[in-house]
C-alpha cells in the first residue's frame, strides 16, 4: 500500500510539472504588459515600467523565469502579485472560501444525488423513477448561468418579499454557512443529476447480481440486502465520481462565484488571467492540480476499502 502511494505520487510529478509549465507558458505568451496595465488610463512612465519589470524578473528569458518561479515554489514561496501582495497569503484566503463552497456542493451532491438515485432504483420502472429521471435531465440541461439567476431571484429575493422569510442571503459570504447553501446547490446542480443517474444505474445492476439474488433467496430482509450487499458494491462508482468531482467543483466555480459575489479562487483566477498576474494564475492552478491528483489517489485507495477484491501492492 505504502509503495503504491509513493509510486502514484511519483507518477503525479510529470503531470504537475507539465501543467504548471503549460499554464506558465500560456500566461507568458499572452499579449500585453501587466506592469504597464497597472497604470490604468494614464500612461505609465516607461522608466518606471522598466524598473518594475526588472523587479518581477519579467525581462528574463522564459526558462529563467520559470526556474525562478518553480524553485521558489519548492521553497514554499509563491511569489508576489504585481501589487506587491504575497500570493500564498492571497491564495490561503481565497481557497478557504472556495473550499467551503465546494464542500457544501459535495455534501449536497452526495445526499441528494445518492438519495434520489436510491429511491429511483427501488422504484425502477414506476412513475417515481420516471419523474426522477426526467428531473435529472432538466437539471443537467439548465446551465449554471440560468439556475444561478433564477434561484437567486426566487429564493434570495422573492421568498423574502413574499413570505418574509429571510433565510437565503442574496450574495456574499457574510452570513456564515447559510451563505453557501444557494450557491452550493447551483454549483452542485449538474453533479446531483449525474450522481442520481449513476446511483440508480449502479444499484440496478447490483440488484441483478447473483449474490443479491442468493441473499434474497436465503430469506434476508430487503433492507439488509440493499444496505449490506447491494449498496456497498454500488458505492464504488459513486465514490469515484465524488472524488473526481471535488477538483472540478473547486476549479469550475467562476460563474457561480460571479453570480453570488463570492470571493473565491474562481473569481480570483478570472481576474488574474485578465490582469496577467502570472504568479497568481500558476499558483492557483498548481494547487488545483494537486487537489485533483490527491482526490484521485484517495478514490483509488477507497476502492480497496470498499471492494476487498482490489488490493494495491
Amino acid at each position, binding site marked *: 500500500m505504502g509503495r503504491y502511494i509513493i509510486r502514484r505520487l511519483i507518477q503525479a510529478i510529470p503531470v504537475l510539472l507539465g501543467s504548471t509549465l503549460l499554464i506558465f507558458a500560456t500566461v507568458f505568451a499572452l*499579449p*500585453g*504588459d501587466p506592469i*504597464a*496595465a*497597472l*497604470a*490604468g*488610463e*494614464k*500612461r*505609465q*512612465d516607461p*522608466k*518606471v515600467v522598466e*524598473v*518594475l519589470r526588472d*523587479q518581477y524578473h519579467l525581462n528574463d528569458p522564459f526558462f529563467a523565469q520559470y526556474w525562478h518561479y518553480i524553485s521558489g515554489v519548492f521553497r514554499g514561496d509563491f511569489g508576489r*502579485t504585481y*501589487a*506587491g*501582495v504575497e500570493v500564498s*497569503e*492571497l491564495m*490561503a*484566503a481565497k481557497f478557504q472560501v472556495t473550499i467551503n463552497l465546494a464542500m457544501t456542493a459535495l455534501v449536497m451532491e452526495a445526499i441528494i444525488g445518492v438519495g434520489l438515485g436510491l429511491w429511483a432504483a427501488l422504484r425502477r420502472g414506476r412513475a417515481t423513477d420516471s419523474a426522477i429521471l426526467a428531473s435529472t435531465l432538466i437539471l443537467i440541461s439548465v446551465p449554471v448561468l440560468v439556475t444561478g*439567476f433564477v434561484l*437567486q*431571484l426566487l429564493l*434570495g*429575493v422573492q421568498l*423574502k*418579499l413574499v413570505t418574509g422569510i429571510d433565510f437565503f442571503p*442574496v*450574495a*456574499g459570504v457574510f452570513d456564515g454557512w447559510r451563505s453557501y447553501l444557494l450557491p452550493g446547490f447551483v454549483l452542485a446542480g449538474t453533479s446531483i443529476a449525474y450522481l442520481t443517474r449513476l446511483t440508480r444505474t449502479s444499484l440496478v445492476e447490483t440488484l441483478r447480481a447473483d449474490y443479491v439474488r442468493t441473499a434474497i433467496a436465503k430469506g434476508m430482509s430487503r433492507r439488509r440486502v440493499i444496505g449490506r450487499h447491494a449498496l456497498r458494491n454500488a458505492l464504488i462508482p459513486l465514490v469515484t465520481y465524488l472524488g473526481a468531482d471535488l477538483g472540478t467543483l473547486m476549479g469550475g466555480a467562476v460563474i457561480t462565484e*460571479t*453570480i*453570488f*459575489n463570492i*470571493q473565491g479562487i474562481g*473569481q480570483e483566477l*478570472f*481576474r488574474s488571467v*485578465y*490582469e496577467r498576474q502570472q504568479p497568481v494564475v500558476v499558483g492557483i492552478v498548481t494547487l488545483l492540480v494537486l487537489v485533483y491528483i490527491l482526490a484521485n489517489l484517495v478514490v483509488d485507495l477507497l476502492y480497496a476499502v470498499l471492494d476487498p477484491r482490489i488490493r494495491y501492492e
Partner: protein
Amino acid sequence: MSTMRVTKGAQIIAGTALLALAVAACGGGGGSSSESSGADQPVRMEIGEPQKLFYPSDTTETEGSEVLAAIMTPLVSYDDNKQTVMELAESIESDDNITWTIKLKPGYTWHNGEPVIAQNYVDAWNFAANVENAQSASYFFGRIDGYADLNPEDGKPTTKEMKGLKAIDDSTLEVKLSAPFSQFPTMLGYTAFYGLPKAAFDANGKVTEAYAKQPIGNGYFQFTKPYNKGTDQTIDLKLYDKYPGEKPKFQNLQFKIYTSTETAYNDLRAGNLDIIDQLAASSIASAKTELGDRYIDQPDAGIGYIGFPLKYNDIYKDVRVREAISMAIDRKTISETVFSGTRAPADDFINPAIAGYRQGACAVCTYDPAKAKEQYAAANGPKTLELGYNNDGGHKEWIEAVANNLRANLGVEVTVKPFEKFQAILDELDAKKYGGMFRMGWAIDYPSPENYLTPIFSTEAAKTGSNYAGYSNKDFDELLKKGDTASTPEEGLKFYQEAADILIKDLPYIPVYFYRVNAGFSQHVKGVKINLLNQVEWTSVEKV
C-alpha cells in the same frame, strides 16, 4: 488620480458581482438597524480594495487615497469655492513662480510622536521621484528641478536627491521648479505630496513594507493594526488624540471593503454601513426615493471623452467630421438611461466642479442629428467608423449607445471594438495599429483647470503624457505657458479658458459626459460632505 474611475470599473470586471446585489437592493427591508450604536461603534464607510499597499506616492486611485486622506494632513486643501486653502502649510509663496517657500504650521506630530518637519517632505518626495522606487505618481514631481537626475534617460540615477528640494530649517521647505508654474500650490493637496516620517524609511532610504501596511500619518485618524491586502475585509482607524487641528467628532472610523457597490448599498439599507461615496447606476432610482436627503448628487471633476488618432489617421482630419460625430451623440439620453443620472452631458473641456467651467461653451456638444447628418455628408465623412473601449470599466453600455447614435444619425457602419484594458488601446495607438476612435476618461490630479489641458492636449504630453490623440497646436501650447507663468491664479484662469476655446474649435477629443458624485449615507450619521478629491470631510461628519 487618473485611475479613480477605472478602479471602480476594475471591480466590475473582476467582481462582476452586480446583479445579485442589485436584486438584493430591492429585496431588503427598510433602513432600520438592529445594531446598537454605542459610543465605540465606528462610522463605517464603503471602499473598494486599494490597488496597492499604502505608499502615498504609489497610490493613484480613489480607494487607497480615501484611506490615506483620513490619516494624513495635506499641505493644502480646497474650500467650497474650489479655492486652495492652507492646511498643514502656513504659507506657500513665490516671487517668480519658480522658487516656492513653504512654511509649515507648528504643533503637528506623526502618530509615533515624531514632530512634522520640512525634512519629512524632502525625504518623501525624493523617494517618490526616484525611478528606482518605481512609484506610479513619480511624474507629479516632474516640475521640480532635479527630477531629471532621478530619472535619467539611460542607466540608473547617480544621486538620490533632487537639487531643487531643500529643508531650510525644520519648518521651512524650499522648492525650486525647472520652469515657472503658477498652479504649483494647487498641486500640493494631492496624495503624492504627503510627507513621510523618519520611521517610514529603512537604512537605504526606502519606504519599508511594514510602513506601507500600517502607515504612520500626521492626520486626525491613525491605523490600529497592519492591513493585509487581499485578505483583510476592513481597515480600522481610531482618533489621534494629539492632533492639533480640528478633530472629527467621533472616535472610530472603519473602512469596509466591498467588491460591488450594490452589495454595499444593500448593507447600508440594512444598517450595516454608513457611507457610500459612489452608488452604482442601478441603485440610483432606489437611493433617491429611499434615502431622500441622505442622497448626495454633486458634480465630480472627471470627464469622459471620445478621442481620435489624429496623428496618423487622416480620415478624421476634417474638423467637420469630428463636429458631426459630436452632434450625433445624444448625451442627454445616454446620461439619463445608461447612467441613470450618474453622469451629466458634457458641454465644455473644463468640468463644472472646477473654477473655469463655462456652461454651454462647446456648441457642437449639443445633440442635433439633422445638422450632424448634413455636415457629415458635406465633409464626405468615412462610411465606416470604429469605436474602441476597454471592457474592464463598465463602458460597454454607453459605447454601444454612442455607436447606435452614429449608425442611426450618420447612416454609417460602426464597429465597436472591445480591448481588455485601456493599456491595450494605448499599445495599439502607439504602434499605429489601431486607427479608430477610442474612449478615454480623465479624473483630475489636482483641482486646476490647467489639469484638463496640459496633460491631455499639449504637444509635450504627446510623448510622455496622456495626449493619445497626438494633437498639437502651437497657439494652444503658448496660452498654457502664459497661464502657467501668470502672476495670479485668476489671470492664469483667463489664459486657460482661451486655450479651452481652441480645443472647442479644433475638437481633438469629443467631451461626452461629466462624472457626478452620487453618494448616500445612513441614518446613523449626518453632515456627510464630499470634497473635490472625492474624499469625505470627516470633520463635518457626526454620529446621530
